[in-house]
């Protein structure tokens, strides 16, 4: 017999799901990223028209999503490294909270243009 969602409903499992889903989503995004870079090889006008397209509000909004994915994947990875290499015991949920906070902080900093 197998477990259902009830056995998986705890913060560390959610962190696993976020890390895995963000990793897969970023992998899927990479070809698009390389395609965008390749536009510069097709001439200035081609790149310029692509860059104008990225000014579209929906694209801007999805960029925030992209930054959130990157931040979540990075913070989740740092959390895993801490779990693997540091002598943690009772603070793994603090670590989880810190990873979530870093993710949200990066997302907000990008969304609010705080650079």
């Amino acid at each position, binding site marked *: 017999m197998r477990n259902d969602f009830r056995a998986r409903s705890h913060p560390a499992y959610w962190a696993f799901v976020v890390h895995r889903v963000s990793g897969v989503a970023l992998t899927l995004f990479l070809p698009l990223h390389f395609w965008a870079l390749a536009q510069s090889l097709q001439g200035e006008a081609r790149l310029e028209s692509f860059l104008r397209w990225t000014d579209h509000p929906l694209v801007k909004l999805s960029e925030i999503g992209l930054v959130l994915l990157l931040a979540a994947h990075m913070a989740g990875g740092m959390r895993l490294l801490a779990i*693997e290499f540091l002598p943690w015991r009772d603070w793994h949920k603090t670590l989880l909270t810190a990873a979530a906070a870093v993710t949200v902080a990066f997302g907000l900093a990008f969304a609010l243009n705080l650079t």
Partner: protein
Amino acid sequence: MSATLKVRVWRGTESGSYQDFPVPRHESQTVLDVVTHIQRKLDPTLSYRYACRVGMCGSCAMTVNGKARWTCRTHVSVVADGDRVEIGPLRNLPVVKDLVADMAPFFDKWAAAKGRFKGTATRHDDFARVQPDSPKRKLVDESIECIGCGVCYSSCDVVTWKPDYLGPAALTRAWTLVNDVRDDAQRERLEAVAGDAGCHSCHTHMSCTERCPKALSPTAGIAGLKRAVLSAALKGEL
């Protein structure tokens, strides 16, 4: 709080279904009390397993409302969903009958992880002296309280996805022995846990740590094993 619990209990083996029983509700009632009431008052053919009733033997673990628990120390008031309680056998193990899981694969993996102490001293030697405050002895302390209940193994998704995976309990036992300075099977043990079914398969879901009724952290032990394997590999010992 109603006076009667609506209890669903798994009947059958791998194939079967849940059967409903009304059980009188009491104060400080444990899930094991509920199962015992059903077997003694309602249906004597119900099979389940327990021994000590005080959280020492590790034999009464079951799946309660979807989560693996030691039933003798789990109060109904903590786990009931209103007046509903669903009780099934442990997951990731074959079902013998009703609430009884076959623990053989679980303990076979303890053996596969070289979870047996192998000393060098004979009866003619003096007692080994291990300082209680030495770093390795302190690491032993962190996992030595395992009662082998199978809650972590039942909660682990990697065991479900990869049936060969040694699982949190066997790896925790291996970690305890890795830190036992008297033990003489360190290389074989690290080889046993370094393989495809060993510590590196852990996905750090931490369900074992979340559910362990003794509040141990198999995840920490598995991380320790990963470091020990890495260190031995870098030194050319593996």
